[in-house]
């Protein structure tokens, strides 16, 4: 039997007023295992602690129970106290006779009785305690940021400025993300490129940032502090070491392709940079359209390149690198409007989306900033906006609000009026949501100073008559149908998760919601963490977000990542799950319930009737386990246990509470 000490605290009069502390200590002397039981005025005070430490040495205690305030308050204190006397800190239990007894029960007899019950429980548990140790794992002091939109760029800069190397990876040829496509930004209307480009350049030139564009994450192994990431560097067919970015190749390339960056409102070449301020600012060859790569004819770019940088033989390259932390910032896609057939979306060329309009407004866009409608290049006068297209629409599987659309529509209406004073914007809306600094004011100006007409109601149909678009809907405030003859219709398409977000989530081992947005570890208190330790979220990949929110979240994620990297090594929880391999059946039920993906099923070799055989058993990664104990309950064979809260310990507590 272990030698247990009991220390009952008066907490001045906080406990002693409504609990007979001496009596409690007296009764505890008879509990199995107790070799010393005493009470004292303030156990957490220095003299109290010294008293406990002396008792540990003098009575050669294996463990002790302190009956005092809540363990949520002083458990660390009493653990440290044990450690100072050479006792394993996990050989301590604290029972709560203040918050959960003396303060809530005025009747001193009843309070005393309950204190005794609680103490009996604590002693019953502590005799089953075992020394526990936390393990340490090294931390690789580098971070990977996946996605180089504004969120990824901000996170990379913040981590790099904190002094840690960062690899900023984007699957596209350039960083910048959606913000690079946006013309001007609400609520200040500063030009998007003017505030974004300097950041792109800063990221590219930062001594701590390695830019890895046109690359994708193929596989992720390992865990917090040490992720082994396999990256595919896609073939660019241009040797960036030789290329000077002169642009001769692009100019001479005969193949024209609709430009993705320009929302197919303009064209690019097969060897191209997506836009003039792209970073890196060197061209790549689009293998799906290059004549030489497709059928061996052409080869002009290679001929005209003055530095011999074009290399048709280049192949994809797989590399493996180790990172301590990962920030995911893969952003969003614009909702595919062709789901709204009633709006002629995808069929009528002059029914466009918000991003199309951004490109039409942009001075370096396909129309050099003149608003010309796609069908005939005519300058529109009446423009109709339809909000919540692919947002807040259960029927389209998008019940959520896309958050940025209310504001970007107000922005669009304002900018159109500035560009074309004779134009008029009509905006169909369900609600106008403007929660953000200076957002409501911006919206008010759009109506009052920029003459935008807001019409509350749904649009039921859009169709073409001659060169006009008839927009039929209802004004639900006036309760009557409306019809507008428009020249251009802009659908405020909502935000969708990246179509392959779920694949990336599976590769990384993070979770996502029913739509495909990555889920944070806690909606309120851990908004940038994932359930996988060491992987953080930034920007719109976690849910629709505008730029200010994306940037704020990116900085938050960067702090988390830098905080992790700043540790010399990671100390894992001591109270983690542990599988008893001897009785584990390898069923894997624990693996599927673990919210942190800490459990793997491994093979062990063992001797069975004189022969070697392999058996599958569960294995808990001590670095990942957070100690929730879900697996212990899922385990049908009782193989899984939680250190510090073992089945035996809890059953002993239950028994003690019932034995009175």
């Amino acid at each position: 039997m272990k030698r247990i000490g009991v220390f009952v605290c008066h907490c001045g009069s906080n406990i002693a007023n409504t609990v007979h502390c001496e009596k409690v200590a007296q009764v505890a002397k008879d509990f199995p295992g107790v070799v010393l039981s005493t009470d004292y005025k303030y156990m957490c005070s220095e003299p109290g602690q010294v008293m406990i430490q002396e008792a540990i040495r003098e009575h050669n205690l294996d463990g002790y129970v302190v009956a005092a305030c809540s363990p949520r308050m002083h458990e660390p204190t009493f653990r440290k106290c044990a450690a100072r006397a050479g006792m394993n800190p996990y050989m301590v239990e604290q029972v709560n006779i203040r918050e959960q007894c003396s303060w809530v029960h005025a009747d001193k007899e009843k309070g005393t009785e309950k204190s005794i019950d609680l103490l009996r429980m604590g002693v019953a548990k502590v005799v089953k305690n075992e020394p526990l140790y936390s393990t340490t794992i090294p931390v690789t002091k580098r971070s990977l940021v996946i996605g180089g939109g504004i969120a990824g760029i901000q996170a990379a800069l913040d981590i790099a400025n904190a002094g840690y190397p960062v690899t900023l990876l984007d699957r596209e040829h350039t960083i910048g993300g959606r913000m690079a496509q946006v013309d001007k930004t609400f609520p200040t209307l500063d030009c998007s490129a003017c505030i974004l480009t300097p950041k792109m350049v800063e990221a590219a030139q930062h001594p701590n940032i390695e830019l890895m564009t046109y690359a994708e994450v193929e596989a992720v192994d390992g865990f917090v502090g040490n992720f082994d990431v396999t990256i595919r560097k896609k073939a660019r067919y241009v040797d960036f070491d030789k290329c000077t970015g002169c642009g001769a190749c692009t100019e001479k390339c005969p193949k024209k392709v609709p430009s993705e960056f320009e929302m197919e409102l303009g064209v690019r070449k097969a060897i191209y940079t997506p836009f003039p301020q792209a970073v890196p600012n060197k061209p790549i060859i689009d293998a799906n359209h290059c004549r030489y790569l497709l059928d061996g004819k052409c080869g002009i770019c290679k001929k005209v390149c003055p530095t011999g940088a074009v290399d048709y033989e280049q192949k994809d390259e797989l590399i493996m690198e180790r990172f301590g932390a990962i920030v995911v910032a893969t952003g969003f896609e614009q909702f595919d409007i062709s789901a709204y057939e009633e709006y002629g979306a995808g069929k009528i060329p002059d029914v466009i989306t918000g991003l199309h309009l951004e490109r039409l407004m942009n001075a370096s866009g396909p129309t050099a900033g003149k608003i010309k409608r796609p069908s005939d290049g005519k300058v529109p006068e009446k423009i109709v906006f339809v909000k919540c297209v692919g947002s807040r629409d259960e029927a389209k599987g998008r019940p959520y609000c896309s958050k940025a659309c209310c504001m970007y529509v107000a922005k669009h209406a304002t900018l159109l009026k500035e560009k074309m004073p004779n134009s008029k914007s009509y905006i169909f809306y369900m609600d106008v949501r403007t929660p953000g600094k200076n957002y409501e004011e911006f919206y008010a100006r759009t109506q009052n100073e920029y003459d935008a007409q807001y019409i509350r109601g749904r649009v039921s149909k859009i169709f073409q008559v001659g060169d006009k678009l008839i927009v039929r809907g209802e004004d639900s405030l006036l309760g009557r149908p409306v019809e507008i003859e428009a020249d251009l219709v802009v659908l405020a398409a909502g935000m969708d998760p990246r179509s392959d977000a779920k694949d990336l989530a599976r590769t990384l081992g993070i979770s996502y919601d029913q739509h495909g947005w990555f889920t944070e570890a806690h909606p309120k208190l851990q908004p940038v963490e994932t359930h996988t330790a060491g992987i953080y979220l930034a920007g719109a990949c976690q849910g629709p977000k505008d730029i200010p929110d994306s940037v704020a979240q990116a900085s938050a994620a960067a702090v988390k990542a830098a905080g992790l990297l700043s540790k010399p090594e990671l100390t894992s929880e001591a109270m983690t799950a542990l599988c008893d391999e001897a009785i584990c059946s390898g069923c894997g039920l624990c693996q599927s319930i673990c919210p942190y993906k800490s459990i793997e099923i491994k093979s062990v070799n063992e001797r069975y009737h004189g022969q070697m055989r392999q058996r599958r058993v569960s294995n808990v990664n001590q670095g990942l386990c957070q100690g929730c104990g879900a697996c212990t309950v899922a385990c049908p064979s009782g193989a899984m246990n939680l250190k510090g809260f073992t089945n035996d310990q809890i059953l002993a507590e239950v028994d003690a509470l019932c034995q009175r």
Partner: protein
Amino acid sequence: MSAVDNPKQPAKEWEPNIVGFACNWCTYAGADLAGLSRMQYPPNVKLVRVPCSGRTNPQFVLRAFQKGADAVLVAGCHPGDCHYATGNYFTRRRYLLMQRMLEFMGIDPRRFQARWISGSEAPKFRDVVTQMTEEIKALGPNRKLREEI
């Protein structure tokens, strides 16, 4: 002699004994807050601290009844708020199954309750404990499943 002097001897007036499993992050914190706010409630529910309500093995509940508990409470964070994200969803499922099974064995479902009490819901903690104590008082001692001691 009072029950305090000899805890083995049953008290004169019968009082229900209720074992409560409380998750560390929400309900246990809520109970602490009730203390900090000096709320008053009957002393019949005694809390066993578990990391998460999802750590509560049905075996613990059965054991409590076997050993003479008159009722069992399992309490944790509100659905969606579990510190470990999903633990209490499993608690909820298990609880429903468990309650039906206990009922089948003749135990009044009021003797086994699951509640979601957050760290700020001290009044709710007080009310749940008070109400449950009254209910069980009215029901009387549990005799089902009980080992003879």
